């Protein structure tokens, strides 16, 4: 049962990722990314990371993707020329990607981590639930938590400064 769910979610995640880079229209790319994010949330649930899965669906597939859809609707799709300025790029890029994957696979297969071949230790249902994550965030990782909240504030202010319409631009 677990294997079936894993393979369905893995195919969804990989298919969504390929759809993102294959679609000409950015709007369809965003829709494929939503498929990818939901499949990843299912994988997180398989790994008993309930809070991360919920945050993935609510924050990513909910809030961030709505932002993307708004900007795509505002800017409009298309505008990407089919013409390549560097003709060799179309052949070099897949080659480089395959080389990177082979390198990563060698790193995983040659790893000295014995536990990679296992399912991981048995854990109870409280593993990765919101209470456990919240306790870690507010006790052990308080400083990263506060730093990330300041970073979010800075990003919001920066986006307003970047995207705000200036007076001389209107006239």
């Amino acid at each position, binding site marked *: 049962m677990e294997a079936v769910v894993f393979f369905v979610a893995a195919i969804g*995640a*990989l298919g969504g*990722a390929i759809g*993102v*880079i294959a679609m000409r229209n*950015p709007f369809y790319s965003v829709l494929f990314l939503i498929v*990818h*994010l939901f499949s*990843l949330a299912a*994988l*997180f649930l398989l*790994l008993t*990371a309930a809070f*991360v899965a919920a*945050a993935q669906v609510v*924050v*990513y597939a909910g*809030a*961030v993707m709505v*932002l*993307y859809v708004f*900007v*795509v609707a*505002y*800017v409009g799709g298309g*505008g*990407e*020329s089919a013409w390549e300025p560097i003709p060799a*790029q*179309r052949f070099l*890029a897949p080659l480089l*990607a395959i080389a*990177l*994957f082979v390198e*990563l696979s060698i790193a*995983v297969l040659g790893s000295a981590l014995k*536990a*990679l*071949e*296992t*399912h*991981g*230790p048995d854990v109870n249902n409280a*593993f990765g639930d919101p209470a*456990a994550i919240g306790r*870690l965030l507010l006790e*052990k*990782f308080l400083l*990263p*938590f506060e730093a990330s909240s300041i*970073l*979010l504030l800075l*990003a919001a202010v*920066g*986006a*307003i*400064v*970047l*995207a705000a*319409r200036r007076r001389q631009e209107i006239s």
Partner: protein
Amino acid sequence: MNITWYIVLSSLLFVTGVLGILLRRSPMVILLCLELMLNAGNLALVAFSRMVGNEQGQVFAVIVMVIAACEVVVGLGLIVAIFRRRLPLNVDDLRELRG
């Protein structure tokens, strides 16, 4: 399922993101491919956290999500600013900063 399966899937997703960044020229799709790569990293973090049997990796994944949200907000702000100035939304044409 072995943890190896998750790690291999995560590296496949990361490679897909790299391929998209190398092939596409629309800044919006490049941002989407950055998301793919960050999510692949998240999957590896959560898988390793399951392997060790410790929730700290999941906290890392949550922080990575925050970083991704910041990156998206600033990137989309840049795209809107580029669009307002009537510049082409194509990374091959936007190369004034190239040395």
